[in-house]
């Protein structure tokens, strides 16, 4: 057993990604420190960590986005390194710099790399330097709205307005005609300020039909870089990914090699350090354009882990502790094997334009079985607060080929349940069963071209659903959050098949 790379590592995040990182840290023999806001006091990531420190109130600015509080928590807990996860401060150069200035190790890229690659504008210039073609656009840092409007005319509609600092679709707007520009621009900018504290915007020609393909990279910060194949993330709603897989159904060995070379060239150009992702649009002629670089671990990193066998989180940690890329990712082991598919389970209502939902997760039956992995931040009885991302879990399946992943995912989702507020699970099942998805015929406008997935007829409920509704109270009394009702009077009933559950619940109450 090797020496733990660090004694303690603080995870500056919450939800499923914090849980996943905490596990990676613990498996390396390090202890993991969680941070949390007051609404997350009982959250899963707090429970699974070895120590946990309260940051402050629920609004992100007072907790997960507060650099000073996070550094103070690291100091208080004696942490030597900080993992930022994704979202929140993960792509904030100021944070990376502040962590290192405080004498701690930042498990991610340098502030300089973030500034260069994280800003979409500069990243495009670097991509051009590295010989990677980009999508036509405009990126005037100090330009006013009128100038943006004029540039929009030059680029032509439809076009995308994006937050320069952003990712995950925050601040992004698709504009089809000039008359919608001003409003979309202002709304996008407002969202960007709220999400990233930075309202710098860029414009980009909307290339379609296209696929969203991204390449996982790792750099050693000294000019060395490797790539771990691609992920296909074309199916998106509101510019947020819904289903991701690796490999892509259309990327052959030659195309993979060319995309990897482009991504590596980009990484080497700026001496990139740690994990990152280079996103491309791939058109129907198999030509690819640089879209943006994400200077962090991605939500969808598990599909790469499953087809390569590398633990990306642990690799981030070990790399920061001095391991070399060749030690971590031996060149002869980087080829993907088999297939992996990820579905994002979100608290949102697909029948109401994916309106975010929140509340008590009364029932949380996670899928299980061979070749199924679940990364979750919530369990039965968890509360999904309104303040943060709507992602509650990721279901990832693995198989020898795409077809086996499709049926495995279908079974996994069918046998699971997240109840208490609307989720996208049925929607995900509809997408997976759709002939175009099964055929691997994926485009970033997949949902626009298959509107039947969004406008589902509201079928009348079958009688069996009513029978289930009627039966439910008979079984509910024994389920998750019960404890409160004392059932001790009925526990002794001989022949009552449910009494063991009641005992069980008493135990759970004490333990929760």
């Amino acid at each position, binding site marked *: 057993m090797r020496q733990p790379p660090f004694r303690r590592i603080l995870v500056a995040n919450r939800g499923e990604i914090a849980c996943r990182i905490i596990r990676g840290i613990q498996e390396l023999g390090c202890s993991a420190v969680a941070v949390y806001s007051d609404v997350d006091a009982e959250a899963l990531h707090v429970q699974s960590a070895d120590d946990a420190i309260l940051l402050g109130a629920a609004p992100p600015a007072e907790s997960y986005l507060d650099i000073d509080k996070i550094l103070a928590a690291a100091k208080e807990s004696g942490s030597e390194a900080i993992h930022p996860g994704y979202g929140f401060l993960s792509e904030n150069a100021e944070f990376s710099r502040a962590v290192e200035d405080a004498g701690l190790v930042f498990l991610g890229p340098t502030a300089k790399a973030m500034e260069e690659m994280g800003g979409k504008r500069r990243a495009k210039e670097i991509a051009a330097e590295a010989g990677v073609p980009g999508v036509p656009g405009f990126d005037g840092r100090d330009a006013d709205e009128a100038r943006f409007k004029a540039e929009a005319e030059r680029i032509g509609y439809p076009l995308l307005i994006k937050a320069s600092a952003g990712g995950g679709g925050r601040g992004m707007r698709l504009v089809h005609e000039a008359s919608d520009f001003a409003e979309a621009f202002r709304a996008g900018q*407002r969202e960007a300020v709220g999400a990233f504290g930075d309202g710098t915007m860029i414009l980009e020609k909307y290339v379609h039909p296209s696929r969203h393909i991204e390449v996982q990279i790792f750099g050693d910060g000294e000019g060395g870089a490797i790539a771990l194949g691609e992920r296909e993330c074309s199916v998106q709603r509101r510019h947020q990914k819904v289903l991701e897989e690796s490999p892509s159904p259309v990327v052959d060995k030659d195309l993979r090699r060319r995309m990897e070379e482009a991504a590596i060239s980009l990484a080497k150009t700026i001496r990139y350090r740690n994990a990152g992702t280079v996103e491309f649009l791939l058109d129907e002629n198999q030509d690819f354009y640089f879209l943006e670089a994400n200077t962090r671990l991605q939500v969808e990193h598990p599909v790469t882990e499953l087809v390569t066998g590398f633990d990306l989180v642990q690799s981030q940690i070990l790399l920061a502790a001095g391991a070399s890329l060749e030690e971590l990712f031996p060149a002869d082991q980087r080829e993907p094997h088999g297939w992996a598919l990820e579905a994002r389970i979100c608290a949102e209502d697909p029948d109401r334009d994916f309106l975010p939902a929140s509340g008590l997760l009364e029932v949380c*039956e996670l899928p299980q079985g061979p070749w199924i992995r679940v990364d979750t931040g919530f369990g039965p009885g968890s509360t999904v607060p309104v303040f943060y991302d709507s992602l509650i879990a990721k279901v990832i399946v693995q198989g020898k080929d795409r077809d086996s992943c499709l049926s495995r995912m279908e079974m996994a989702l069918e*046998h699971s349940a997240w109840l208490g507020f609307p989720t996208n699970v049925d929607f995900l099942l509809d997408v997976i069963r759709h002939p175009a998805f099964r055929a691997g015929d994926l485009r970033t406008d997949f949902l626009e071209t298959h509107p039947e997935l969004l406008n589902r007829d509201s079928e009348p*409920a079958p009688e069996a659903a*009513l029978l289930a509704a009627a039966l*439910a109270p008979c079984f509910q009394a024994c389920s*998750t959050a019960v404890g409160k009702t004392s059932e001790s009077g009925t526990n002794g009933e001989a022949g009552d*098949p449910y009494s063991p559950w009641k005992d069980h619940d008493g135990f759970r109450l004490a333990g929760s």
Partner: protein
Amino acid sequence: MARLPHDLEIAEENVHLGSRRKPGGGFIVQLGSKSYELEAGRLGTQGFWFRDTEGQRHRAFAAAQGEGMVVRLDGRTWAFKSAVHEQGAGAEEQDPSQVMAPMTGTLISVMVSTGDSVHEGQDLAVLSAMKMEHKLTATAAGTVSEVLCAETDTVDAGQILIRLEILEKGSDRDS
């Protein structure tokens, strides 16, 4: 855990649901005026199974959701409105004179004032939650009679934010 409702609105009718364990085994299930005898049992720690009147076995999970309940049956989700609390979730889509918050969140913009006339589809306010923005639009033409919220307010799902006086159908044709 929230209590499950016993009266649901199904196909615009109120249906009373009931169930109890039969002394000799099995369950008596009541759906409105109809009554069934079914076999059922627990499934894992959170779900249950039952055999329907045709002998078909089903897997189910159920929970309260808003004022109503939600059932997941054989991998498909069915949401039911409670018949008793129809005013909550049910009314919001039907009554254009009340603009409600569709979710808990923070108002980042309120674009109308009392006395403004609005057309169908006009944006009235912008709500932000889970870091995404959502526009609230007028579902019918009318005049703003009351604004019950202000920018930066945190509002609850179902809270009435703006009241409109709706124009009679057809009367806006000339305007």
